[in-house]
């Protein structure tokens, strides 16, 4: 059994709003954050979950070289919910070299490079100052900017396992603390809108023209979103109301690069391993936040896995109709939503979904309901068949 880690602070900026209180407000009122695609000049008929106001948040000062949409989103996220103050306290308690940083991302600041390719010279060169590769495009840039912004000096890495990236950060952070590499870890995920993901998912025929409808009979694809989310993980004595990371489970499908195992074999393994690590039984989980992207194949495969692991008793829902699929930020964003659900005793319904797919056997909730929760599982599955399930809850 793993030592439970305490979530001592969390912060978010996502299509539902800046900060936990606006996110909770949207969640409980069933207000979604999707809109018809208005990202730059991307002429794709789809809906997106866009974070408002990033255009007016340039990074200035010592970290100005890191200025790009993704890192702006990261710093906007860090400024929410007293997170910087919580990290400052931890820095005083443990020392900056004892606090690690692990951030998940899939596309980092590639948008800068995409735009630079439109401005190449006649001989094909990039204008020298148009790409700050290390500070924008490279996947490490977001971890570097977070670490420097927070004044931390512990171990640091970016994790990029497609749409499970910012769930995987919890597993690695837990290991770092287990071997004594550090005393606390800032885990997070940041992914922002760019042309590559919009046109790439469109090329695979995976974008819905309407807001995504996970588990609906007529679901026809996902809605892309963007988000930044962070949690500070520490080991401390239990206090009333504390949120803990109780378990994580990782697996690979070993099946196909971009379609899930049809029976959800890898997904089921991730869930079982998370339960094993937490020494919990399926009945101990009060709610499952599905990966639930809204593509026909993903939702069906995940349903097989849920049915195999939980049967039809455990309430499940997808929140991607609210935030969109925030890709490398999905793991942390949904862990934060799970934290809000645990705090308020709330199971969010699956927005936009009206007619459940009769092929699906698990208990997918369409309408939101208040109900006391002790433990929640959150699923994140990515390209390359990379799966990660987290269990968050109160310590039993």
């Amino acid at each position: 059994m793993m030592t439970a880690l305490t979530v001592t602070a969390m912060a978010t900026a996502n299509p539902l709003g800046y900060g936990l209180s606006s996110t909770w407000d949207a969640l409980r009122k069933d207000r979604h954050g999707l809109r018809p695609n208005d990202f730059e000049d991307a002429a794709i008929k789809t809906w997106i979950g866009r974070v408002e106001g990033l255009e007016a948040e340039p990074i200035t000062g010592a970290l100005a070289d890191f200025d790009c949409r993704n890192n702006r989103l990261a710093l906007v996220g860090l400024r929410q919910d007293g997170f910087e103050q919580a990290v400052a306290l931890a820095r005083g308690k443990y020392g900056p070299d004892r606090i690690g940083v692990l951030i998940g991302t899939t596309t980092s600041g590639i948008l800068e490079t995409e735009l630079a390719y439109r401005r190449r010279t006649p001989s094909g060169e990039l204008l020298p100052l148009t790409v700050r590769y290390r500070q924008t495009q490279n996947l490490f840039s977001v971890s570097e900017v977070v670490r420097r912004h927070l004044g931390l000096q512990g171990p640091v890495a970016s994790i990029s396992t497609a749409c499970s990236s910012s769930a995987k950060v919890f597993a690695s952070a837990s290991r770092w603390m287990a071997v004594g590499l550090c005393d606390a870890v800032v885990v997070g995920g940041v992914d922002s809108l760019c042309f590559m993901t919009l046109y790439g998912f469109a090329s695979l025929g995976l974008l819905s023209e309407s807001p995504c409808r996970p588990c609906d009979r007529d679901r026809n694809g996902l809605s892309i979103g963007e988000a930044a989310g962070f949690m500070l993980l520490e080991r401390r004595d239990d206090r009333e109301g504390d949120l803990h990371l109780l378990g994580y489970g990782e697996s690979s499908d070993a099946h196909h690069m971009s379609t899930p195992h049809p029976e959800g074999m890898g997904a089921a393994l991730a869930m079982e391993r998370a339960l094993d690590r937490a020494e919990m039984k399926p009945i101990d989980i009060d709610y499952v936040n599905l990966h639930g992207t809204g593509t026909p194949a993903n939702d069906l495969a995940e349903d097989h896995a849920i049915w195999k692991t939980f049967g039809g008793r455990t309430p499940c829902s997808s929140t991607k109709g609210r935030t969109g699929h925030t890709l490398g930020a999905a793991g942390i964003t949904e862990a934060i939503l799970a934290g809000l659900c645990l705090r308020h005793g709330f199971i969010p319904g699956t927005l936009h979904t009206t007619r459940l797919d009769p092929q699906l056997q698990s208990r997918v909730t369409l309408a939101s309901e208040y109900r006391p929760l002790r433990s929640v599982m959150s699923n994140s599955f990515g390209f390359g068949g990379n799966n990660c399930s987290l269990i968050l809850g109160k310590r039993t």
Partner: protein
Amino acid sequence: MQIFVASVGIAGPGLDGWTASRPILAGTAAHRMAPTSRSIPDILSAAERRRSSQSARLAITAAQEALRAGDLRGDEIATVFASSDGDGDITQEICESLAGPARDVSPTSFHNSVYNAPAGYWSIATGSRLASTSVCAYDVSFAAGLIEAATYATVEHQPVMFIACDLPFPFPLNTIRPVEHSFAAALLVTPTARNASLMRWKISLEPHRAATAFPACLPESLRSNPAARCLPLLALLARNQRATIVLEYSDSSDLVVLCEPGT
């Protein structure tokens, strides 16, 4: 923490496999510059051989060699993959498409563009359903990957195939991020000693000290490849000597590996 190196794979310029490279790295044979092999690893199925990107093929070439040199099955080994720059050819192709009028992104290129694509192909090839983590830390991605592999093996008590791989960008990105040569290395590491362990590595993060010099027997140009930063460790494996290797890690610490030969 400590791990045991069970076997090694390598694919680099004039470094065509561990058996051929070992005397070069040990200093008993001269290095001759030759382009990195572009062979397609036969562990991939016909379909994956066709679909896979250059970075996946290179990474898997090294991993396949390490797997076949050890006595563990592929499906009982977890994966850690480290790279600074991912697949530059794919990035280039997609950025060019997106800058053109049609903005047609090839579906295969898009799924190959995910950073963990080499690890995904590897799990398909080996049938491993164990954990697979892909990490990036710019120039120190190898050191970050070694930390990930060592912590994974230690905490989860499973063997890990740790693969580090970087390739040059094509023009024009190579003017902004100059990396010379394609290079991949794979280390099969285990949490406990096995009969044929090559070395025991004790790994820690420590305050800055002088980093170990890049092996003098290899061309200076290879240093620009982030994955090739493993070469001081591989040279020591080739010589089978006891020594402490220091790899640059962060602005506040270095990765220190105390290496002890196996029996």
